[in-house]
């Protein structure tokens, strides 16, 4: 069993001329964990991966693998391996030659090499395909070969650059499960970059939300989803209703927030008079008055039947909220409903700021 390495990112900054692709990024990854760096395009996530892999030198900061500074090590010598977005499989070699390439570069040849190649192919679910040519493989198979080629040399940290981006939806979901299984069986530290928040949530032990070269939020998927630290992560990770408000008095660990729907007492901290936002997930809004906080009476503007639930747009006052109501009974357009929410499901966000909680 290979144990993954601890990965430490210390104040990494990357500037291209005037623009900073990454700005003072700090991150500590515990050995053997699956970290997903999530961000929209242009957030710097690929640059970060490229710096970790040794392909791009950072302008400032250090990268440590198991407390050893690798910032200036070339990719050849780094204990990291990258699975490239386009897989970068060598088209003039067979599957086995591709997977065995790293081994032969490390001086491992003959029987040991072929045994390890066979094991790696088995791990990714492609046993006995060693003689096939790359051109004859499907997209999903190429993805697997790329993964086998990367893990066969037993890297301490595996870097995956949007590894599932080129696959169709069904295959992507299937590969997610397999990736997660492979990571657990190997125990290697995985750093996976994606813009797909569903992919991030289903794979990650820790999600790191990146925006404009800065870490916006980081934590386990459920914490990030249920208690997002910023407006950006509240809206980027799934849908959120945002309600503007002004903070009032704090009572214990709760703050009263004045909004257009009334004044609510919610958990969190904010100085008196601060502009804040309340974030509520659509599935946390209820169409009854059982919730702790009554938001008001509203009119259904539209409805989509999704299957597990019906997704409605409800207008309360001059604001529109999106909510997921139970699939039954069907709501009609123009119907008047009462909307409430449990206080625990409301997240208090500092307005416009990107500070952590």
């Amino acid at each position: 069993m290979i144990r993954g390495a601890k990965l430490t990112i210390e104040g990494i900054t990357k500037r291209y001329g005037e623009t900073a692709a990454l700005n003072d990024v700090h991150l500590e990854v515990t050995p053997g964990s699956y970290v997903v760096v999530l961000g929209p395009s242009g957030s710097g996530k690929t640059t970060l991966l490229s710096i970790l892999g040794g392909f791009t030198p950072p302008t400032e900061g250090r990268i440590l693998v198991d407390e050893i500074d690798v910032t200036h090590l070339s990719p050849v010598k780094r204990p990291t391996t990258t699975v490239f977005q386009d897989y970068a499989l060598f088209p003039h070699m067979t599957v086995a030659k591709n997977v065995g390439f790293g081994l032969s570069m490390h001086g491992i040849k003959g029987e040991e090499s072929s045994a390890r190649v066979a094991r790696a192919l088995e791990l990714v679910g492609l046993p006995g395909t060693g003689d096939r040519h790359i051109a004859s493989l499907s997209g999903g198979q190429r993805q697997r070969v790329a993964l086998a080629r990367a893990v066969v040399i037993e890297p301490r940290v595996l870097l995956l650059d949007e590894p599932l981006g080129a696959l169709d939806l069904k295959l992507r979901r299937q590969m997610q499960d397999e990736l997660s299984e492979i990571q657990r069986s190997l125990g290697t530290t995985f750093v996976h970059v994606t813009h797909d928040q569903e992919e991030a949530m289903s794979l990650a032990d820790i999600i790191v939300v990146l925006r404009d070269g800065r870490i916006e939020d980081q934590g386990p998927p459920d914490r990030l989803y249920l208690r997002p630290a910023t407006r950006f992560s509240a809206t980027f990770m799934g849908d959120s209703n945002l309600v503007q408000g002004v903070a009032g008095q704090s009572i214990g660990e709760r703050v009263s927030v004045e909004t257009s729907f009334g004044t609510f007492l919610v958990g969190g901290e904010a100085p008196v008079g601060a502009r804040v936002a309340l974030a509520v997930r659509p599935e946390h809004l209820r169409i009854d008055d059982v919730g702790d906080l009554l938001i008001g009476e509203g009119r259904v503007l539209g409805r989509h039947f999704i299957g597990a639930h019906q997704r409605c747009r409800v207008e309360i006052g001059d604001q529109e909220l999106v909510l997921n109501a139970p699939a039954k009974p069907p709501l009609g357009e123009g119907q008047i409903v009462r909307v409430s929410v449990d206080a625990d499901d409301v997240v208090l966000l500092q307005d416009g700021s990107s500070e952590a909680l």
Partner: protein
Amino acid sequence: MTQNKTPRKGWILTGPALIWTSIFFLAPMGMVIAYSFFRRVGGSIDTSPSLYNYQRIFDEPVFLDALKNSLEVVLITVVVSILVAYPFAYILAYRVPPKWQRPLLLLAVLPFWTSYVVRSYSWLLVLAKNGVVNGMMQTTGLISEPVSLANTRLATVIGFVHFFTMLVSLTIYASLTQIPDSYRKAARDLGASSPMTFLRITLPLSMPGVVVGAFLTFVLAIGDFITPQILGGGQELLLPQAIMLQVQRRGDFPLAAALSVILLVIVIAVYGVSAKRLTLDGK
């Protein structure tokens, strides 16, 4: 592109090209092949088919020598052109910033813009006994007496290489730029040193460009009359010169035709070999 349902429409569209090719390519080619089996008797031509001309070519050393000289000169040209062109193309494709690649390519193909004949005579001036090279070597004391550089096989090869290096650079450059960056990155990532990355990844994947360049060089050089005539200057005979000799001096068209057919067969054989190499690429 839509599929043609009526074959007639296809014939109409390809007709002009077919007629053109038949009149100006296939017919003359057929005549050359037919002529090669005729025989010159005195001032007239005996049209009863025979292998007489081929017999002569393989019996008389002067023709076999011309063939051997041609193959030697052309193979040296191909090898030297590749050796000169590859590093140039490699540096251009991978080391030069993209915005400078096009201007440099343009400079590289400048020799194509000058006339073939003018270029050959220019080399004659450079390589002549009182030419630039001899002058420089004499003033630097490298040699005391002028060396005969023009009118040698070396001069022919230099003239060829000057021209074909540019051509091969283009084909190799095109091949190199088609190799995704990520291949070389992945190779390094998996522990391959720079020389290893070159030998195992870049070189094999750029072989199509090398083979195409080598093939074009071979075909164009082996059929070329001007460069060996001007620069080689009659010290040795290459195959095209031997053909011209039969046509101009001896008026032996059947023998010239037979020599041409041999040239054609060689070119076809080389094409067969390089085409095979190209499909081996696997991509």
